[in-house]
């Protein structure tokens, strides 16, 4: 039995039914990690011994009937910006290369309560700043579909690990598309919930008002079950929202009859790769065939999303990342003279270029004299973008869009032109600015064989609509495994 090819729920069921055990699942995951991770570099940290010990304990609890949830005993990979007590949490940055948190993030604690076994921490763009997982201090992650291409980012490690079957599912975080875009590039399903649904306590902040933790998995059912496990009202997070219901799995129904889906014309114009466009519109048609009502509309203000996003996210980041100063934890320069020199050298040596760029950008837009012209203006744009979505959702249940304008770019192509890279976030950042939920579902591949994802967006707290439509769509296709994992002999085809 190939345990790693199963979805999280399938594996959970088999463990529950005694066909396999949590320990066997961990062994299988590490066998796969051993096989492919040197090539892919999905993980920054793994801890097999700890995982096996956890698996043993959890297995006993499952057998004793103390753990009955659908994810009990299923191995998970955690993005490396989520604090895990006693296990390195680096944000893929040199400045946190040796940081072991004293506590575990609330979302991870929720997973542990559900019986998850943590395999390790996944690679990411440094402090989640990037769209390619190439800005990591620990080297880039490769796309399992074609290792000459990036997996997307910033949750590239999590998405690639799911696609390459190095874990059963993973947690990512999404500030401007960091779950949805790499899910699209890696051919997996990923979801960013409504802001406030999953506690941010223990998520090392990038843009606090935009960050949200979410699931990355092989299919919609897994995503719904994972979201159900990680979502909670957390009094430790002031922005956490007490939702009326935390039931997401009951939305797993094959029924989109009468569901009104809006297709924003502004998202299908210039800049969208024709192949991507074709597949997305085809997916829309499939939903229409299933009974959904499609309509094109003008979302408007789309051109303001990227500047507003980069101003707000960078402003918050410049302040959030101030605590990394070499005083209390993490990297400190070896040679320095006095306090200010220590700050300067530790931060200069500890942060990579993309992080520095955003800290400088953020510091600039908050400076006196520029605050009103940039930051305040960006907040106004954010409010208007939210209003544009409000108008759209007064007419539609869902918005259907691409997750990214292209399929995964080749390694090294994006970082040379940051503006171009930022523009690639065009379809995802608005969702964060408006606090909305969004999900990426695989909907095909381009001629090169690289995956394409469709994005479904709903109004706040309407995840069940997304799940319903995504589930219905998913049922019309079969899950495509990446060539890397299909047969062992194909491993030779992977290029370093």
């Amino acid at each position, binding site marked *: 039995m190939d345990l790693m090819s199963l979805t999280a729920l399938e594996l959970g069921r088999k463990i529950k039914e005694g066909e396999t055990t949590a320990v066997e699942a961990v062994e299988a995951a590490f066998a796969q990690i051993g096989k492919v991770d040197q090539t892919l570099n999905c993980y920054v940290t793994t801890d097999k011994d700890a995982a096996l010990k956890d698996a043993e304990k959890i297995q006993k609890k499952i057998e004793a009937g103390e753990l009955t949830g659908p994810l009990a005993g299923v191995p998970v990979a955690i993005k490396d910006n989520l604090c895990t007590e006693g296990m390195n949490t680096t944000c893929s940055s040199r400045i946190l290369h040796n940081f072991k948190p004293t506590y575990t993030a609330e979302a991870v604690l929720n997973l542990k309560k559900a019986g998850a076994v943590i395999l390790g921490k996944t690679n990411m763009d440094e402090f989640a700043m990037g769209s390619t997982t190439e800005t990591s201090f620990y080297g880039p992650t490769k796309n399992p579909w074609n290792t000459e291409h990036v997996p997307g980012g910033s949750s590239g490690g999590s998405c690639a690990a799911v696609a390459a079957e190095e874990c059963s599912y993973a947690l990512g975080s999404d500030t401007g598309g960091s779950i949805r875009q790499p899910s699209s590039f890696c051919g997996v399903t990923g979801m960013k919930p409504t802001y406030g649904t999953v506690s941010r306590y223990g998520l090392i902040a990038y843009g606090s008002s935009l960050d949200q933790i979410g699931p990355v998995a092989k299919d919609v059912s897994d995503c719904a079950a994972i979201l159900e496990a990680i979502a909670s009202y957390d009094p430790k997070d002031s922005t956490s929202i007490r939702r009326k219901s935390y039931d997401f799995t009951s939305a797993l129904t094959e029924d989109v009859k009468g569901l009104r889906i809006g297709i924003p014309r502004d998202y299908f114009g210039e800049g969208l790769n024709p192949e991507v466009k074709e597949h997305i519109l085809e997916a829309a048609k499939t939903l229409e065939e299933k009974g959904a009502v499609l309509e094109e509309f003008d979302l408007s203000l789309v051109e303001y999303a990227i500047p507003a996003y980069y101003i707000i996210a960078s402003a918050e980041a410049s302040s959030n990342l*101030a605590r990394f100063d070499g005083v209390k934890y993490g990297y400190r320069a070896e040679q320095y003279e006095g306090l200010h020199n220590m700050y300067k050298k530790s931060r200069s040596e500890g942060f990579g270029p993309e992080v520095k760029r955003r800290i400088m950008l953020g510091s600039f837009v908050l400076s006196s004299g520029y*605050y009103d012209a940039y930051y305040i203006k960006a907040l106004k744009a954010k409010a208007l973008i939210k209003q544009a979505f409000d108008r759209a959702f007064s007419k539609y249940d869902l918005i259907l869009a691409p997750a990214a304008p292209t399929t995964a770019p080749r390694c090294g192509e994006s970082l040379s032109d940051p503006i171009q890279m930022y523009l690639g976030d065009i379809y995802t950042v608005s969702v964060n600015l408006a606090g909305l939920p969004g999900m990426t579902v695989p909907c095909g591949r381009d001629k090169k064989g690289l995956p394409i994802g469709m994005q479904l967006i709903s109004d706040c707290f309407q995840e069940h609509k997304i799940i319903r439509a995504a589930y219905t769509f998913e049922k019309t296709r079969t899950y495509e495994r990446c060539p890397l994992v299909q047969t062992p002999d194909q491993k030779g085809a992977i290029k370093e």
Partner: protein
Amino acid sequence: MSIQYETVIGLEVHVELATKTKIFCGCSTAFGGAPNTHTCPVCTGMPGSLPVLNRQVVEYAAAVGLATNCTINQHCKFDRKNYFYPDNPQNYQISQLYEPICRNGYIEIDTASGTKKIGIHEIHMEEDAGKLIHDEWEDCSLVDFNRSGVPLIEIVSEPDMRNAEEVIAYLDKLRLIIQYLGASDCKLQEGSMRADVNLSVRPAGSDVLGTRTEMKNLNSFKAIARAIEGERERQIELLSMGRTVTQETRRWDDNKEASYAMRSKEDAQDYRYFPEPDLVPVVISDEWLASIKARQPELRTQKLIRYKKEFDIPDYDANIITSAKRMADIFEATTAICGKPKKVSNWLMVETMRLMKEHEMEADELTFSPENLAKLIQLTDEGTINSSVAKEVFTKIFLENTDPEQYVEEQGLKTVSDEGALKEVIRKVITDHPQSVADYRSGKEKALGFLVGQTMKAMKGKADPQAVNQILKGELA
């Protein structure tokens, strides 16, 4: 002819609030714990930690605002003030800039020249920083985060004060209000109240403000008065020499009675304030505000009016007793037990004041219970002990909160009222001091005093001096 200058002063007063826990986490605010023992991921700025606002901080801040006639901003927000310093674990302080909780208030102060309104520009909530300890021996600095996250309010006055007397009166009034509210103990020496003085001078009659300086490190009212005088003179001297005052922050050295510049406006930091994204706006509903209002304790002005109505004590006494909340509390509680306001007031005005002075204590350090003071008053009223014994017993009560009944019993301090025993002692005194007896009989009244004294001494003070006097007179007649 030299120009006459007017001094213009505004104050920024930081007050540490008396909450049990910190402003954004559940750690204790207790003073004096071992370094870094009252800490958690939040107040040490650990990655991923998030602040959660302590409701009590809002209530105290609003209470101070209400008591100082401020408008309460029922939709206030927190902002981040960004600056790097090792005592500040996140390298930003969570404070309020754009939407502080209180605005546009005032308090009235009384000075020799009458009553004056001092405007309060705003009151905002913020977190305190940790403490740096410089280890000269090891040549390194250590950080203690116990104080990090202790709640503060900053009370910013309008530049309405003109001299040190007004400044002290303002601070005194503010301190009293806050102590009455129980929002802080406001101890300058211990840093639970800190005042920064913004001062400028201008030619008398001008209504244009001069360039101001900000003076820090003022640890007592006396230091504040000296610093104001010193800074006023320094600025006037500069101006009369045709030079200008530089806008800067200065540190007062009270030992040297001089200040020196810490940083000037040119190298002033840009704090890059922006709304704190980890906290939601603080919405103070009408109901919440009403409940804070309903719980406002009686302040001094109201107390004085009530004392006049309820208790038969002189205005002078009432003024002194209400000058500290602790004193007023003791007065009211003791009076409630014994029903003798004038006697309670006497004990507070005379003996309590004397002992406080002797032991260099503040009113809020008083530890004796109203019950014991009431018992003492009872014992003297009944004649169980005489007034000099009562003073001795009160000293015990004052220092150790001793139960006077028990103490009088144990020490055998009851007044001897047995006339027979007293007569016996008096007769012995007469026999032992024939010269004094002769002197008295020959008309020297003073000699009687000596004989009374000798009798009291023989009785170890436990006699009623009046009775002794009478019996002696009878025996000598």
